[in-house]
Each structure stands twice: as C-alpha cells, then as structure tokens.
C-alpha cells in the first residue's frame, strides 16, 4: 500500500460498514417493517367492556392461589399426577432411546447420505406435527387415556432430541474421532470412544430438559383426553373449582422447579 493512500485515510474517521450496503434499500426495509408493525397492531380488536368484566373473573382465579384446595379432590389430583409422572418417565425413556440412533443417522459427518435423508425425514415429520395434533389423532386411534399421551410424548421427544443431538455431533472435534479411527477401531467402538464422550454432556442436558418439557406437556395433553394431570385440571376448570385448579398448578410449578434443580445437579456431574 502506498503512502499517498495512507495519507488519504488518516484523520478520516472510521465506521463499521452497514449490514445492508445500499442506503435506499436499508431505509425502505426499516420503514416497511415499521409500517407493517403499526398495521398489525391496528388489526387487534379489543373489547374494553369485556376486558373490564373479565378482570373480575381473573382476579377470582388469582385469589384462588391464596387458598389452594389440595384436599377436596385429593384422590383425583393424586391419580392424575401419578399418571402424568408415569407418562413422562415412560415417554422420556422410550423417546431418548429411539432418538440416539436417529440422531446418529441424522448427523451428516458420520452417516451415509441415504441414512441421513431418512433420519432427517423422521425428525422433520416429528417436528412438523405439533403435540396437540398428534394427541388428538392418537386419542382417536387408541381412545382416551394415558396410552395416547405416552405415545405422543415419545414421538415428540424423538424430533426434539434427535435434531439437537445430530447438530452437536456435526459440531464435534474431528481430530479426536479421527485418532480413534486410526487405531483400527470398528464402527461401534468409534462411536463409543470417538463421538460419545464429546456429545455426552449435551445429550444429558437435553434429555433432562426434555423430561421437563414432557411433564409440562402432559398437563396440556389432558385437555384433549390423553390422560394425566391435565384431565384433572380440565375438570376443575369446567366446574369453576378455581381453588382445586390452583392447587394443581402449584403442584405442576413445584415439580417443574424440582426437575430444574435436579437437572442442574446432573449436568454439573457430566461436564
């Protein structure tokens, strides 16, 4: 670079180049987004009279938390909770076990193309179908009850865990795996020594997170008849028994927090 060029640059100030270089395009993109935002908010209709009436009902609901009723429906709550826990544990175990081979197959750096395409296909289907929709379908097939819930959650776990596991495998350190391959290891040994140690902390963390999600989902699935604590919760709302509903919600919150705490401990062990 010549000195004349440097002399021109000195004293000129410096700004980071804009992400969108063309100023016309940049400003019109900004203005367009703003206009869309305003238009979008204007389409939301709010009936303030209705809101005023509803405030009272909402307040009732919140007040119920001050006096949750664990007792009068105790056996229903206990039964629902137990069903949810069984559903969560069973679905998580089955889901995670199936996710691992699919996750391996969905990682481009270790799976041959045909296997990769099939596994990615399974992941895509599982992720495209929302839990509630799957649950409605499965309730239609298997009837009301926790079996439909269990299958729904297993199916959803596969999409979630396989995808994230595959992405972690794709991001692993190649040289560690290469070193194991160079020793003459077979494929399974290679996975066990070269790949598994690298992705284990993430797999454990994600699995714990999925158990947490499955428990929360099990409370929703009851609304469409797939069993669990959600069914009990739904009944409580239908009967306007807000105090019982509050008790159930408090239990769900408590269990989710306990799971969060447990997951922290487990993840720390698997660093």
């Amino acid at each position, binding site marked *: 670079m010549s000195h004349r060029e440097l002399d021109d640059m000195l004293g000129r100030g410096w700004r980071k180049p804009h992400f969108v270089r063309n100023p016309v395009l940049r400003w019109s993109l900004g203005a367009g987004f703003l206009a869309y935002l305003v238009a979008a908010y204007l389409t939301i209709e709010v009936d303030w009279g209705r809101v005023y009436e509803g405030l009272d009902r909402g307040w009732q609901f919140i007040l119920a938390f001050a006096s949750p009723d664990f007792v009068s429906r105790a056996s229903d709550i206990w039964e629902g909770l137990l069903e949810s826990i069984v559903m969560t544990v069973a679905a998580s175990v089955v889901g995670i076990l199936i996710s691992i081979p699919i996750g391996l197959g969905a990682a481009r750096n270790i799976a041959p193309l045909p296997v990769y395409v099939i596994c990615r296909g399974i992941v895509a289907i599982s992720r495209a179908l929302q839990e509630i929709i799957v649950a409605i379908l499965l309730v239609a097939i298997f009837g009301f009850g926790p079996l439909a819930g269990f299958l729904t959650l297993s199916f959803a776990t596969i999409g979630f865990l396989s995808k994230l596991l595959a992405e972690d495998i794709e991001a692993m*350190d190649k*040289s*560690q795996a*290469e*070193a*194991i*391959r*160079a*020793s*003459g*290891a*077979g494929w*399974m*040994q*290679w996975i*066990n*020594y*070269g790949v598994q*140690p*690298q992705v*284990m*902390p993430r797999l454990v963390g994600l699995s714990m997170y999925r158990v947490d999600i499955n428990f929360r989902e099990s409370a929703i699935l009851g609304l469409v008849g797939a069993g669990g604590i959600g069914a009990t919760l739904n009944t409580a709302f239908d009967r306007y028994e807000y105090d019982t509903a509050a008790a159930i919600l408090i239990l769900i919150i408590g269990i989710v927090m306990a799971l969060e705490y447990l997951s922290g401990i487990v993840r720390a062990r698997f660093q």
Partner: protein
Amino acid sequence: MLRLEKLTKTYKTGDQALKGIDLEVPKGQVLALIGPSGAGKSTMIRCINRLVEPTSGAVWLDDADLTGLGAGALRRARRQMGMIFQEYALVERLTVMENVLSGRLGYVGFWRSFLRRYPQSDVDEAFRLLDRVGLLHMADKRADELSGGQRQRVGICRALIQNPKLLLVDEPTASLDPKTSRQIMRLITELCRERGLAAIINIHDVALAQMFVPRIVGLRFGEIVFDGPPNRLTPEKLTEIYGEEDWEATIETVDEDDDEAAA
C-alpha cells in the same frame, strides 16, 4: 517395509495434493517429511492409513497393498500403523488410561471395549508405557487436565500400545514450546530405536528435523524435491522446497544445544 508407488490424491475441488509419490521406507528407519503448508505432507501420511482415500497408486506395507483392502482388512492393517497427531487429538473427556487403551481397539471386541474390560496384558502394557513417558501417576486423570507436553506423551503411548511396525506422526510439536518440542522429538526417536519402528514424521521445524532424524524428505506442491541426510540440506535446497528466504540462521541452530532454544 513401506513402499509408496505413484501415490496420487486429487481432491474433489480439483486440487492435486499428491502427484505420483514414490517412496520407500526400510524397517526401523525414521524419516522427516518437510515442506510448506499445503505441500501435501498431511495428506500423504493420511493416505497411508487411509484416513484419506488415495485417488490412485499403491501403498505397500510388507506384502499387502493397503489401497485395495476392505473394511475388516483395513482395520487389521491400521493396527500395524500407530498415528500421533498435531494438537494431540486425545479424547478430552476420557481418562488418560482410556485414551491409551483406545490404541487396543483394533484388537479387542466391542463389548470388552464398551465395558472397559481390557485383557490384563493390555492394561499392564498401558501402565508400562505411561511409566516410560513419566505419566504413570496421571493414569486416572481426565485428558483435558494435562498440559500440552503431557498430552502428546499420552498420544505417543496410544500409538505405541498398538504394537505397530510403523509410526505416522503428523506435526507432533506444532503447538508445543521449543524445549518441550525437543523432548517430544527425542522421545519419539528414542522409542523408535528401542522398538525398531519405522516412522514418518511431518514437521514444520526444519532445525528440529535436522537435529533428530537421519533422513529428510522435502515435499513441494505434492512432489518430492529432496531426499537425503540432514547435512545435504543446503540453503539452495531449502529455497527449492520453501521458496526464497534467508536460511543461514535456520541451519546454524542445528549444533546448538537444548537449553538455548528453550530460553
């Protein structure tokens, strides 16, 4: 013992990394492979154990052409070639002992390795090797707790426990300080002498290669442009391998002793 015949590697991008390499390494000979980045050094040693598939040519290890082997036979052939890596390539979340024993994976079955139930003879050999490199007390530490020099020693143990005929060594000192680099090079060459192993050592540091290795092969643009003992490596030859530069200082450091470079 090892013979490369017209070994060629063309990558999918069209880059010719190796252009018909012919090279013979007799039993027990240690050889340094020098050359600029991108000359094909790393590709060459990876073509030997087929971590990279050669495009054409042959790799003869004793009486077998490795390029035509199927999966099982390749696995058995790889057992005879220990590899030592740049940046160590230890599996960081496994213990030192697991890393060393992973060198036996070509010999033990899946369940044995999965349950970490290695034969007593393997375990004893692992202890012996760790003792030889001075890391016996580290056996149960996790690999990521070790320093660079210590990790490379574990890498050496992992290669040696394979009981190989040949060592493939890829930039063993690239991330080490000058003193540790010399110690590692000395250790590798000593161990090769003790066990009668042949070795191909990729190395950036010309002075280090001249100091420890009796035969030097220079690679440029995928072709061998020098093959001879270290004292024939003149500034003219280095210019041919690497391009124009002042080489006097590089060559002079050869006869200085260890601690000066470390200081």
